[in-house]
C-alpha cells in the first residue's frame, strides 16, 4: 500500500513539474516581447525596461523558469495586467461560483445516471434499456451550448419559468441562486450523466454475470439485496474512475456554460482573460486548472483502495 502511495504521488509530482514547464514555455511562445505583452501597447521604452527589471525578464530563461516556479509554489502567480489584482486572489474569488455549479451538475448527473444505469443493466435488452441507451447517446452528442440556448428558449423565453442568466450569491438569496443555477447545472451535467450512465450500465452488466452474484441469487436472496448489497458496490469502482477523468471535461464545460448563462465564475474568467490578452491571468488559470486535475485524479486513485481492498494489497505491481 505504502509503495503504491509513494509511486502514485511521485508520478503526480513529475507530472505537475512538466505541466509547469509547458505552461511557462507556452506563454514564452506568444509572439512578441513578453515585456511589451505585459506592459500593453502604450508602454514606452522606460516602462518596458522597468517591467523587464521587475519581472526579471533580463535573466536567462532557465533562471526565469526557476524563479517563476518558486513563486508559484508559494502561491504567487503574479498579477493581472488589466485589474492589477493578484492572480491567485482573482481565481479564489471566482472559483467558489464554479465549484457550486460543478457540484450541482455532478449531483444532477449522478441522480440521473446511477438509477438509469442500474435499471437498464437489470432490464437488459428491453425497451427500457434501449431508451436509456438512446438518451445516453443523445446526451453524448448534443453540443452543450446549443442545449443551453434551447433550454433558455423554452424555459425562459417561452414559459418564463426560470431566469435566463445572471448570478445571485447563495448567502444573499439561496432560492434565487438555485433558480439561476438550475439550467446551467443541468446543461453542464447532461454530458457527464450520459458518460456515467453508460459506464454504470456496462459495469453492472459485467458484475451481474459474475459467479458470486449467481451464488447470491441461488442462495435465494431477494433481487434488491443482490443488486444493491453485492453488485452495486463493485460496479461503482469504474464509475469513480470515470468521474475523476471527467473533472477535466467539467472544467472545460464550465467555460461554455458560464459564457451562455452569464455566470461570473472561473470559466468566464478564462475567456475574459484570453480576450483581454491578460497573459499572467491566462497562465495562472491554466496552471491551476491542470494542477487541480492532477490532484483530483490522485485522490481518485487513492480512493480505489477504499472501495476495493484487492488494489490495496496488490497495487504496487500495476504497470505505469
Amino acid at each position, binding site marked *: 500500500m505504502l509503495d503504491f502511495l509513494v509511486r502514485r504521488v511521485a*508520478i503526480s509530482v*513529475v*507530472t*505537475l513539474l*512538466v*505541466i509547469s*514547464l*509547458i505552461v511557462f514555455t*507556452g*506563454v514564452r*511562445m*506568444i509572439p512578441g516581447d513578453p515585456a511589451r505583452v505585459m506592459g500593453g501597447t502604450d508602454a514606452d521604452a522606460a516602462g518596458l525596461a522597468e517591467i523587464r527589471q521587475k519581472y526579471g525578464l533580463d535573466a536567462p530563461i532557465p533562471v526565469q523558469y526557476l524563479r517563476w516556479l518558486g513563486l508559484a509554489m508559494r502561491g504567487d502567480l503574479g498579477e493581472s495586467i488589466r485589474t492589477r489584482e493578484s492572480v491567485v486572489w482573482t481565481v479564489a474569488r471566482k472559483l467558489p461560483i464554479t465549484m457550486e455549479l460543478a457540484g450541482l451538475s455532478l449531483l444532477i448527473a449522478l441522480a440521473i445516471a446511477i438509477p438509469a444505469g442500474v435499471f437498464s443493466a437489470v432490464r437488459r435488452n428491453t425497451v427500457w434499456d434501449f431508451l436509456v441507451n438512446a438518451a445516453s*447517446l*443523445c446526451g*453524448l*452528442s*448534443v*453540443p452543450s*451550448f*446549443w442545449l443551453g*440556448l*434551447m433550454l*433558455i*428558449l423554452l424555459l425562459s*423565453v417561452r414559459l418564463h419559468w426560470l431566469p435566463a442568466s445572471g448570478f445571485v450569491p447563495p448567502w444573499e438569496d439561496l432560492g434565487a441562486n438555485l433558480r439561476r443555477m438550475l439550467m446551467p447545472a443541468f446543461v453542464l451535467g447532461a454530458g457527464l450523466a450520459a458518460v456515467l450512465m453508460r459506464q454504470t450500465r456496462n459495469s453492472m452488466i459485467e458484475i451481474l454475470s459474475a459467479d458470486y452474484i449467481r451464488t447470491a441469487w441461488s442462495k435465494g436472496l431477494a433481487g434488491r439485496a443482490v443488486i444493491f448489497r453485492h453488485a452495486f458496490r463493485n460496479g461503482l469502482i469504474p464509475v469513480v474512475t470515470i468521474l475523476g477523468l471527467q*473533472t*477535466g*471535461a467539467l*472544467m*472545460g*464545460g464550465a*467555460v*461554455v456554460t458560464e*459564457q*451562455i448563462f452569464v455566470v461570473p465564475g472561473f470559466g468566464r474568467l*478564462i*475567456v475574459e482573460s*484570453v*480576450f483581454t490578452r491578460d497573459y499572467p491571468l*491566462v497562465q495562472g488559470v*491554466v496552471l491551476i*486548472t*491542470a*494542477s487541480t*486535475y*492532477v490532484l483530483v485524479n490522485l485522490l481518485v486513485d487513492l480512493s480505489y483502495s477504499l472501495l476495493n481492498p484487492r488494489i490495496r494489497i496488490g497495487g504496487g505491481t500495476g504497470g*505505469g
Partner: protein
Amino acid sequence: MAADRAGRLWRRLWRRPPAAVGAVVVLFFLGLAVGAPWIATSDPQRSDYGKIRKAPTAANPFGTDDLGRDNFSRVVWGTRISMQAGVFSILLAIAIGVPAGLVAGYRSGGLVDQLIMRLTDAWLAFPFLILAIGLVTIMGASLTNATVAIGLAATPTYIRLTRGLVLSTREEDYVQAARALGAGGPRTILRHILPNIVSALLVQATVSIPGAIIAEAILSFLGLGVQPPTPSWGTMLNTAQQFLETAPWMAWWPGLAIFSLTLSFNLAGDGLRDLLDPRDY
C-alpha cells in the same frame, strides 16, 4: 477482394439499423460539404438588408440572419468548416500520436518511453477544451489554428491508446515469430504490429471526430475559431444567442446540424466498434 470485404462489412452493418442510419447521415453531410456550391446556390455571405431576421419561407427555408443572409445556405456551407476541422484535427492527432505511441510502446520502460509518457501525462492533465483555448491564444484565432489546437489537444489520447495496443500486441506469437526470424524494430512495428492495431485506432477516430467537431463549434462560438463573415455553425450560434427572443430559428438549424452530425458519427462509431471487435467473430 477488398470490394468483397467492404460488401461483407456493409451487410453486417446493415444488421445494425442505428449504425447504418448513422453511417448514411455522415455520408449525407459529407455530400453537403462537397456539394455545397451546387446545393446552396445563394451566396452565404451576401447580405440583403430588406430581409433582416425573417422567419423561414419557401425562398429561405431556414429563415435569414441579422444581416439578411440566407441561413440555409450558411448551414450548408458551415458543413464544410465543421467537417474540415473535425477530420483534419484528428488526422493531425493521429499523425503525431500514433508514431509516438508506437515508439513508446515498442521501447516500453526505456528512456524514450518515459520521456514520451511523462509528457503525455502532463498534456492530458490540461482539460481538452482549456488546452485548445490556451493554444489558440498563443497562435491567434482562425480556422487553421483552431484545427491545429484541437488536433494537438487530442494527440495524447492517441499516444496512450497506441502505446497500450502495442504493449498487448507485442507479446503475441506472430510478433515474437517475426522477431525470431530476424525482423528488425521498424519492420516489426510497421509490418506486424501496426496492421493489427489499425482497427482499434479507426474506432477511436470515429469517436474523436464528433468531439473535435463540437470543439471547433465551441471555439468559434466563443470567437476563438472561424472569424466572420465565413459561415460556421459555432459563429452562427454565437450571433443567434443575441436574437433568441425575436429570431429563434437562427439558433435551431446550426445546432440541429451539429447535433445530428455528432450523433450520427457516434452511432456509426458504435457500430464500427461492434463490427471490428474480435470477440464478435
